[in-house]
């Protein structure tokens, strides 16, 4: 059998999370196809064909794919599902939205957020906010999987030369329509793909202070900006900056946590980072239990000083 990866894309380019998912797919089955369901998505399909390790790209075009509606994309996946042993989605907002719909229609259990492939039917996944790792065995004929992108290296975006097959579009029933979106424009690296992340917590006290203190450090380091749930709930930072069990799962080279106490839900989102730096006034803060380098200091002194000294 072959593995099918559902590409996440913006119709022009393939999103980074797809590359990590392809690496997981290769671990399940050496032969990997990629599905690009989009609207005017020829460029995305062409980009998918360049990815190393991909043997075929399936390209389906329909206006209802433009915004990746779950009902439409799931219908397209189901139209080709029977040819595949594994169907993998990145565990992003989009993949998590669509994958269970596909699994239920196929009457198979879905394996969520895998962090490791042990064999073609056995996978590891974190449970209880990352406080335990479960090894699960699937006996279903088609394995529907979402992939924790930080658990796998990205496949090379170039070097491949897959054939592109055009599919007839199979779409949903139109009971769901896209109205609009507010996507924050940002020149910064994407949070889940960033090499360096600076992250702020409730101790920043206000949105103005958050911007004033954390952004210059991020600029200096070329880093993405993250936030704890407390900072997001208090309105200091937008919610798509949230790092944690219910936000983004990140694993950068360097994670700098300022004014974050380190609740287990936050740690679940960042404890696989290579080097963790914690800056906190409270020497008892749980964040110091996972940090490689801890500095007990007022972040309003330490972060600007750090920014200046770099």
């Amino acid at each position, binding site marked *: 059998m072959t593995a099918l990866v559902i590409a996440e894309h913006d119709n022009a380019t393939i999103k980074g999370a797809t590359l990590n998912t392809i690496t997981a797919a290769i671990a399940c089955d050496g032969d990997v196809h990629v599905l690009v369901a989009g609207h005017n998505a020829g460029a995305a399909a062409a980009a998918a064909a360049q990815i190393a390790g991909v043997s075929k790209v399936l390209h389906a075009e329909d206006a209802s794919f433009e915004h990746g509606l779950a009902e439409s994309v799931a219908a397209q996946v189901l139209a080709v599902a029977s040819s595949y042993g594994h169907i993998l989605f990145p565990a992003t907002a989009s993949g998590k939205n669509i994958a269970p719909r596909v699994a*239920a229609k196929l009457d198979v259990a879905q394996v969520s957020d895998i962090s490791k492939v042990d064999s073609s039917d056995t996978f590891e996944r974190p449970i209880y906010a990352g406080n335990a790792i479960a090894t699960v065995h699937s006996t279903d004929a088609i394995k529907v999987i979402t992939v924790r992108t930080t658990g796998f290296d990205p496949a090379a975006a170039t070097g491949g030369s897959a054939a592109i097959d055009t599919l007839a579009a199979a779409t949903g029933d139109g009971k769901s329509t896209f109205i609009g979106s507010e996507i924050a424009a940002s020149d910064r690296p994407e949070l889940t793909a960033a090499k360096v992340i600076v992250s702020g917590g409730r101790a920043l006290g206000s949105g103005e202070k958050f911007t004033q203190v954390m952004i210059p450090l991020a600029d200096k380091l070329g880093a993405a900006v993250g936030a704890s749930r407390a900072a997001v709930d208090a309105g200091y930072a937008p919610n798509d900056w949230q790092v944690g069990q*219910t936000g983004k799962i990140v694993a950068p080279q360097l994670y700098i946590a300022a004014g974050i106490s380190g609740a287990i839900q936050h740690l679940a989102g960042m404890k696989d980072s290579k080097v963790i730096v914690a800056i906190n006034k409270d020497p008892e803060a749980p964040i110091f239990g996972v940090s490689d380098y801890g500095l007990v200091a007022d972040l309003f002194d330490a972060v600007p000083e750090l920014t200046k000294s770099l």
Partner: protein
Amino acid sequence: MKVLVPVKRVVDYNVKVRVKSDGTGVDIANVKMSMNPFDEIAVEEAVRLREKGIVTEVIAVSCGVSQCTETLRTAMAIGADRAILVETDVELQPLAVAKLLKALIDKEQPDLVILGKQAIDDDSNQTGQMLAALADWPQATFANKVEVVDGKAIVTREVDGGLETLAITLPAVITTDLRLNEPRYVTLPNIMKAKKKTVDTYKPEELGVDVTPRLKTLKVVEPAKRSSGVMVADVAALIDKLKNEAKVLG
């Protein structure tokens, strides 16, 4: 219109769970259990829709062991009108729960099902989407704002990079994100009132659903521990460590 709100009994989110030494699972004996936090948000949203006059009845549902009745009582103390328990001692996985809920949809004919986006024990994030698929209903996951107008739900969703708004035709499934609302505290008079509300009980067999687990958990282990780090005296020492020891700064 009628709303169904599935709620799950899970280990309280403040509890630091321990993995059993024999690797069979997480030790949940004598651990505090509560309603899954996302489900509290779902109940709150359903009750708010009733308070706005859009919804006439809110039914809370839980699947699992008999103690799930406590979780249902909490939902009724928040404001659910009545409750249904699907009682079984079998380990329930999302697909089985979705099938049980589909059977209840057929019985109760609700216009809307509001679920939490994920349970904090198995972290699956599947049940709502699976239910929508089985019922052939549209879905709006990770909702942070819900309005119901003219037979449609207008839902703003939290997606990577920002927000997105969808219109979905009812009947439909919505799953809640954290920022949809702030669940109210349950008051003692409401807890007393909740005791008088009805809880209907079904067995999975009565609903015609096979709940046998489809995924087998081979083992559960603790995550790899991080080696304990060092404390540095000041910013200069921190920069020195990052440059010369960790080599993560150029």
